[in-house]
């Protein structure tokens, strides 16, 4: 099929299948999946600038479907998502400025590669340690006897003591989030969103691989709600990114629309599947995602070929 905006010939079935796979990941983990979609679009012959912009547009559509489904399951904290959108957009602007600075300095590729590898490996290692520790503690408790009031959404974390200390910080104004069962300083929420935004602007994509874990470990949001709220927040921040890229001529909306036909089904499967897994298991399953991202960057760095 010919796409006149980008001038590319790509099979719509390929696009729908890529969308479907990323949709499953997005619905289950609350990530945009740009670390897979970007290289997949590049592999289909799309220029790098179109791959980045079109991927963002596709993320908007997929996140709408997944967030709608998560909302029906009670997994979206609208208040938290709206507050975070402000921090994310501000952070994304700073991230984009940092990229421009590095471009002028002439070492953008090397610095971005090293930062992203460090971040991806750090997240994976930490989440592997935390989720395994939490699951071992849970197993030990269950062997001693059944746990009362335990449901799939009941969340536990080996990092809880740090999360509790952050929640006890009395930095005015405090924000009550009844949907998540958390009261926390507005500045902490904005800080988490801002950092996610910086990485989004700096490394590209929605940066859900940073925001989702931060929401769980720093803000203390239950994993299921972190996934759903992250998707809702991505709708706002990725829409902003799509608009920004579209006016620069980097978005082929027809490709994004075709990808979204597959993503609509995949995102629903992913979202519904979260109901069958407890928080620590979702976090453990999340571990390979940043590793895939790290592998792609290492490949690019070593071979000099951009995937």
């Amino acid at each position: 099929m010919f796409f006149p905006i980008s001038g590319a010939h790509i099979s719509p079935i390929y696009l729908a299948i890529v969308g479907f796979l990323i949709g499953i990941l997005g619905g289950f983990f609350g990530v945009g999946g740009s670390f897979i979609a970007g290289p997949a679009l590049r592999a289909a012959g799309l220029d790098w600038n179109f791959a980045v912009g079109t991927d963002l547009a596709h993320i908007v559509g997929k996140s709408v479907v997944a967030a709608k489904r998560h909302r029906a399951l009670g997994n979206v904290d609208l208040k938290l998502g709206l507050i975070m959108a402000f921090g994310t957009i501000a952070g994304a602007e700073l991230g984009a400025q940092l990229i421009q600075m590095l471009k002028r300095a002439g070492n953008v590729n090397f610095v971005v590669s090293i930062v992203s590898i460090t971040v991806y490996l750090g997240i994976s290692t930490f989440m592997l340690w935390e989720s395994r520790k939490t699951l071992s503690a849970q197993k030990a408790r269950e062997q001693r006897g059944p746990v009362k009031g335990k449901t799939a959404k009941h969340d536990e974390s080996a990092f809880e003591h740090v999360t509790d200390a952050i929640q006890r910080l009395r930095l005015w104004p405090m924000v009550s989030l009844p949907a998540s069962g958390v009261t926390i300083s507005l500045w902490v929420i904005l800080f988490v969103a801002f950092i996610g935004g910086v990485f989004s602007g700096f490394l590209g994509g929605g940066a859900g691989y940073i925001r989702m874990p931060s929401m769980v470990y720093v803000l203390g949001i239950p994993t299921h709600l972190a996934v759903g709220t992250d998707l809702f927040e991505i709708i706002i921040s990725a829409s902003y990114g799509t608009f920004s890229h579209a006016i620069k001529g980097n978005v082929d909306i027809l490709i994004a629309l075709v990808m979204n036909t597959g993503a609509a089904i995949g995102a629903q499967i992913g979202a519904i599947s979260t109901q069958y897994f407890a928080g620590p298991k979702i976090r453990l399953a999340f571990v390979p995602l940043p590793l895939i991202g790290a592998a792609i960057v290492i490949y690019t760095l070593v071979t000099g070929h951009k995937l």
Partner: protein
Amino acid sequence: MKKETARTLRAFLIELAVYAVLVTGYFFLVLHFLGEGLHQLEVRHRYTYAGVSILLIIGQAVVLENVTTLLLRLIRGRSE
């Protein structure tokens, strides 16, 4: 429990087949007609194109989510 899983899987596969037919029609009919218009918009009115792009992707997502939910409900209803 196994019977329930088998029913869900069967409903899902039927949904996927019906959805694939709908989507194929969508590729060839709607995108074929939209393509040239959007291309012209992208060349001549970049800001309008940016706004229309966001509206299209969100609009399509809402419609597809409703279509898939409706299909699943219809197919499940019949298989029960």
